[in-house]
């Protein structure tokens, strides 16, 4: 009997989607980075200049490079460095998709409390991902 215990339906559904999403995200991350390294798309910051910027606090860096925060990178996907954010954002978003996958299962099983917890978690993660929350400068 040992080792044959089955995880719950929602746990398996979460795991299955996470498995696929994680692999797709990592592949995207590697492909976009190779494109960046090969210089197939000109980066916003020339790579030779990177050492000048990576030692700056983030607010100085943003001013010096004229980079806008939030989802502005979506409009600059033609640039090699910004293209990497496709993989980064995908990996950072996989968890939201997994939660959305289990919400209907939880409600179908009449597990209302956990269904509501999952909905709130999605809202929290979407808020974090929205770009609305800005950190103060230093």
């Amino acid at each position, binding site marked *: 009997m040992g080792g044959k215990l089955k995880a719950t339906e929602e*746990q398996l559904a979460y795991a299955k989607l*996470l498995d696929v999403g994680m692999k797709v995200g990592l592949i995207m991350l590697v492909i976009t980075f190779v494109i960046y390294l090969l210089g197939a798309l000109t980066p916003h910051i*020339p790579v030779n200049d990177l050492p000048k910027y990576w030692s*700056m606090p983030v607010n100085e860096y943003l001013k010096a490079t004229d980079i806008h925060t939030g989802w502005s990178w979506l409009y600059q996907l033609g640039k090699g460095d910004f293209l990497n954010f496709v*993989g980064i954002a995908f990996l950072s978003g996989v968890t939201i998709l997994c939660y959305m996958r289990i919400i209907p299962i939880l409600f179908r099983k009449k597990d209302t409390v956990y269904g509501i917890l999952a909905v709130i*978690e999605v809202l929290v993660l979407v808020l974090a991902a929205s770009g609305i929350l800005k950190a*103060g400068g230093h």
Partner: protein
Amino acid sequence: MRLIISVGMILMLISGFLLMAPGAVFAEEAAAATVQAESTTPWWVWPLVLFVVTFVLGIVAVLGGVGGGVLFVPIIGGFFPFHIDFVRGAGLLVALAGALAAGPGLLKKGMADLRLALPVALIASSCAIVGAMIGLALPAKVVNIALGGTILGIVAIMLMAKKSEFPEVQKPDNLSSALRISGVYYEPSLGENINWQIHRTPQGLATFIVIGVMAGMFGLGAGWANVPVLNLMMGAPLKVSVATSKFLLSITDTSAAWIYVNNGAVLPMMVVPSIIGIMLGSIVGVRILAKTKPAAIRYMVIGLLLFAGLRALLKGLGIWN
């Protein structure tokens, strides 16, 4: 052996890319009027060294039984030229990638428990957002001092905290009973199924407020804190605690990572070599771990953290810049 050769080839391939890129690809930009960097070190040296160091950290982390993030931030922050803002952003994504990779297996085997994780994750991930925003608003000096203190605290926890394979939970508390947080998993060393339940749930959940804030503020991951709270305070079996903690990081670090991404504190040239390096290192580490369990490695990790923690503290205090 084949795996090690494959990993070696991938390492060489990526190293080759990093070495070739400046000459072959960016020659045009180099010829253009690029701004002279303050350092004379070519740009590709640091990402390449970062890749090699994170590969080693990946091996050491597995052998030492710690998460990659907790080693990454103090070591890369202390000894590389990158600003601590970018190091924390990369640290979170490194910890996130590791947790995402481990999550499916742990969930499928029933080692990580979704019922235990969901309420904890909601608190930790909400507080990680607050931590990330505080961390990005604080001056680097303050962050380094706090980071150094935290790392030294982690060293103390690693040295002193006991672990309990199967904590005794006489009676589940009302909250965990209402949420039906309990489970059963197969323990191969005993050849039997282990039923478990938890207690002190309100205290445990309250502790995750602090853990979430710290995870977001320092980009450390939080396995070092998750495991003792789940295991010693709430009474989950050690294996369930370790697995659920790893899975939890995939949620906690997601919320904090978005704050760093959306506030510009993520540099792909740092993040991608770090993620690939630490993941390849982890694969090799797991292989080594299957053959040998070097106890000395844990003390080496503690020594490494002690040194890196002191470095961060002294850097923050302006004594060792």
